[in-house]
């Protein structure tokens, strides 16, 4: 009874670790900051980390993927978009770190997508002992294609967001620049006249002395 139960427990333990997980997060990384995301991955599991910088500065960020034995698996400096896939050979906590330490005042908005393992099949579909019928396999490929469509849509949305935010920034800057420069020109032109008048009114007694 005891061994049976411990076998069950062990089974559930492994089942928990082996379920797949896809997490997409969009977060803001302040300047001179570093942010890490950790994930516990079983050995033999494929995982993919994808990131894209949405706004901020020159739209670049440093990326590092660190294995459980503290070995750096992948490092990229000042990248706008990148994707990294690997089959985990060691079981443990993998860390994906983003660094904005090279930037002095621009904070970046980063989108990260971490996919561990393959997607779970639908409940009930997992216990397929016979081959799938044509209907089932075509619906499965439909599902995979739609997944790709959703992925492309996400990246398109991020890139469009980048362009749009840049345009909105430009719009505001043009307005501030126009107002600022108009005020400066008016002040300078009036100031010129005032200063010129000042020169002549000061020299008046001395001129009268000389003439």
């Amino acid at each position, binding site marked *: 009874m005891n061994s049976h139960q411990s076998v069950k427990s062990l089974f559930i333990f492994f089942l928990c670790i082996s379920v797949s997980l896809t997490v997409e997060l969009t977060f803001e990384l302040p300047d001179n900051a570093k942010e*890490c995301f950790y994930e516990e991955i079983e050995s033999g599991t494929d995982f993919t980390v994808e990131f894209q910088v949405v706004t901020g500065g020159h739209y670049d960020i440093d990326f590092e993927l660190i294995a459980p034995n503290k070995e750096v698996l992948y490092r990229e400096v000042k990248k706008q978009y990148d994707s990294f896939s690997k089959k985990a050979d060691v079981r443990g906590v993998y860390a994906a770190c983003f660094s904005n330490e090279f930037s002095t005042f621009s904070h970046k908005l980063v989108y990260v997508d971490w996919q561990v393992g393959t997607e779970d099949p639908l*409940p009930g579909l997992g216990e397929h002992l016979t081959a799938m019928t044509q209907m089932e396999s075509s619906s499965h490929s439909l599902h995979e294609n739609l997944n790709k469509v959703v992925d492309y849509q996400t990246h398109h949305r991020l890139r469009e967001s980048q362009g749009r935010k840049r*345009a909105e920034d430009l719009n505001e800057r043009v307005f501030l620049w126009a107002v600022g420069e108009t005020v400066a020109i008016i002040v300078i032109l009036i100031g010129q006249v005032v200063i010129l008048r000042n020169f002549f009114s000061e020299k008046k007694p001395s001129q009268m002395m000389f003439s």
Partner: protein
Amino acid sequence: MATLLMFIPVRKVSLSFFFTWLSIVSTEAGKMQFLGISLIFIIYLSCVSGLYFHIAETERKCFIEEIPDETMVIGNYKVQLYDPRTGGFMPSSPGIGMHVEVKDPDDKVVLSRVYSSEGRFTFTSHTPGEHIICLYSNSTKWFSGTQLRVHLDIHVGEQTMDYAGIAQKEKLTELQLRVRQLLAQVDQINKEQNYQRIREERFRQTSESTNQRVLWWSLTQTAILLVMGAWQMRHLKKFFEAKKLV
């Protein structure tokens, strides 16, 4: 055990399945029973979310979700407190609560609640745009205390559907369930495309506004320069004539 095999592929090992398993196991008696259940429960707790990150106790961490309207978002989180005695994180810290605040694109608060150290929050968007989800602990300290480990998992739109529950409730076959999934996905894609149209319109309006502003600025500046230059000349001429220098 057979029931277990069927429920393995389910991503979120939901409580209903856990209790089904519990009812099967409860036919056996004994103290080992209790230990076994608590072990399972602890293991279950540890597989709520995979991705985690660290924040300070008073720090506020925000995530942005750009979603179309009428989209449901479910977030699962779990918070662990740093244990200085072991140098690690306590497996469960019931004392801390997490304040979850969700703001919609118009900066209006959609959801603002304090949850326990482990839970899930749900909201449905009514306007398309950037929703900001902020998490921070309800700690009363003024400056950063200990470190917190936050496990987080956010599901948007079609991913929020509980297929196992739907299959069980409506008694659907695999193919029918797959069709449901495809319908939900296509619906989500449709909403996203609609939102894309709205975004493109906003982008176009911004560009046209910039164009207008640049045009007005150049005309106004030229006019101001001409007018001011003429005024300057006239004013100085009058000034010098008064001074009998011209």
